């Protein structure tokens, strides 16, 4: 019978018991809104983290002292200080290597005029900016000559510069790093935070200068290697391993005292973690949708019971079982669909707000909405069919006698 007529019938009923309908819908609204919001949060977090990792440098290999790491877990702890500047130079000579920057860390009091702060100091080579994907905002980066000549020059991260009140016109001025005068030659553009560590809070100086004044050991914390093209990463990685094993006197296949990691490994690990997170969030949200569905079923069963006599009357005046079934099913579907649409609106709004706060922007996936619509309709059908069948199967004489 004439779907439109049944639609009218089912919808008019919803208007009869508005509060009940609204409360039943609320279950679906919450369920769908949380599915949309949580799935979007999962996607937003994933894309946010991924884009930041990619921002750390392209085709980047990182050589660290100590034993191989798998994912985030470190194997046997190796001796810490096994890498040297000479190791970095050896790597630089390998084919397919575009740039190498060894890094030595320290933390020193930095004073500029009346401002001061304790900042991370990084001693490195002229390749640092290109390997780590930094862009110069003012002035210029360290030159190879700065490094070979042990010059006291410094390039500041964006955060450090603004903390110290340095900006336009500060290039060429002198600041004090660890009590020694350094000339500011450049300031980086901001890069954004990566996890808890800001990539913009640092003072970069020539590695030679660093060794002269702040670090008496030759120990290198990390060596960043930029590979000429993505296709060569595996090859270069293997070359570095052989080279370093040779230099450190380790037999091939022995336990290395260094580890080489690349971005793809990290991306993979992060991807699998965030993927798991997304599934978990979607799972939690689905449970609330399920609860909403059970709410619909509950209210529909009550409704069928309450309207037993109405069903008897309708059957007496000619309604077929299918007509009754359709009437109740449409009611359940209307509740779940309207609830679903409202839930999507709220979910999308929540996504926008969360994205704004978390800083990965508004990640909107039409597929999520489609899935949510299909999901809420499915909930309506699954939890509406049983009560509707109950209604359709009522024996008309029992229904008519029902008080």
């Amino acid at each position: 019978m004439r779907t439109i007529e049944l639609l009218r019938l089912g919808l008019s009923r919803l208007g009869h018991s508005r509060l009940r309908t609204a409360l039943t819908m609320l279950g679906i609204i919450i369920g769908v809104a949380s599915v949309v919001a949580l799935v979007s949060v999962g996607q937003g977090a994933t894309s946010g983290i991924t884009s930041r990792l990619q921002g750390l440098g392209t085709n980047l290999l990182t050589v660290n002292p100590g034993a191989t790491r798998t994912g985030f877990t470190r194997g046997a702890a190796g001796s810490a200080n096994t890498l040297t500047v000479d190791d970095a130079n050896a790597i630089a000579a390998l084919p397919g290597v575009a740039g190498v920057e060894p890094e030595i860390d320290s933390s020193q009091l930095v004073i500029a005029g009346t401002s001061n702060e304790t900042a991370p100091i990084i001693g490195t080579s002229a390749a640092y900016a290109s390997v780590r994907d930094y862009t110069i905002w003012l002035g210029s980066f360290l030159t190879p000559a700065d490094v070979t000549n042990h010059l006291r020059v410094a390039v500041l991260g964006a955060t450090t510069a603004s903390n110290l009140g340095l900006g336009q016109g500060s290039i060429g001025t002198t600041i004090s790093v660890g009590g020694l005068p350094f000339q500011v030659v450049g300031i980086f553009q901001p890069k954004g935070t990566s996890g808890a560590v800001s990539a913009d809070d640092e003072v970069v100086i020539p590695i030679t200068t660093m060794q002269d004044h702040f670090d008496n050991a030759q120990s290198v914390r990390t060596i960043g290697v930029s590979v000429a093209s993505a296709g060569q990463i595996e090859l270069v990685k293997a070359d570095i391993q052989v080279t370093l094993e040779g230099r450190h006197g380790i037999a091939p296949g022995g336990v290395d005292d260094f580890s080489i990691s690349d971005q793809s490994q990290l991306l993979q690990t992060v991807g699998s973690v965030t993927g798991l997170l997304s599934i978990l969030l979607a799972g939690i949200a689905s449970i609330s949708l399920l609860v909403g569905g059970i709410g619909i079923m509950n209210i529909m069963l009550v409704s069928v019971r309450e309207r037993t006599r109405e069903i008897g009357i309708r059957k007496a005046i000619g309604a077929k079982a299918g007509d009754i079934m359709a009437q109740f099913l449409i009611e359940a579907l209307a509740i779940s669909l309207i609830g679903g649409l409202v839930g999507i609106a709220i979910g999308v709004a929540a996504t926008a707000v969360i994205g704004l706060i978390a800083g990965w922007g508004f990640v909107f996936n039409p597929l999520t909405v489609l899935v949510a619509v299909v999901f809420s309709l499915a909930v309506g059908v699954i939890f509406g069919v049983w009560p509707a069948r109950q209604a359709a199967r009522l024996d008309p004489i029992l229904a008519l006698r029902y008080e």
Partner: protein
Amino acid sequence: MSAPLIELDGVRRVYDTGRVQVAALDRIDLQVASGDFLAVVGPSGSGKSTLMHILGCLDRPTTGRYRLGGVDIADFDDDGLAEVRSRTIGFVFQDYSLLPGTSALENVAAPLLYQGVPRKERLARATAVLERLGLGDRLDHEPTELSGGQQQRVGIARALVTNPALILADEPTGNLDSASGAEVIQLMQGLNRSGRTIIMITHDAEVAQGATRQVHLRDGRIVA
């Protein structure tokens, strides 16, 4: 004389409650010709409503045969019976049985919905019947906004709107005072005079006088 509209042959209806079997109807033989106004009279529990449910194709005989318009209703499945109810039978109930929260007009139009009549035509036909029964100014009233007599007239209008061959009324005056009861009986007599077949159930001998023919039930059997 043409074939009777209704033929019951040895109809039994046994309710199986698990512990005991109650024969609400026992070997009923009955013929009702087209154009009859039959009153079924009997005390409470004699099986009147059970008989009406069978006549109205809401229920089936446990044994025996029921032919309506010459067709054995055992030949129909449940949807077929719904179709028969929709096309050929109009019900009038003691408690009016109007759809709650629904206007008089929508109540009367409801049976046409299940015949697939378009909405405009439904409303036009329902309006015409309600006007004929003097309820033209009560179209938008819901059942709670109508008196008992008015509600029963809406109920009769609903039974009439499909233009059925048979009208079945179960104690149509049972809930009404004598004045509005008499009005309802007059209404039914008028319908009968214009050619409609009516079967009316009542336990009130006086009300039964309004019919042209009476059948007396006792303990599920026809006694007179």
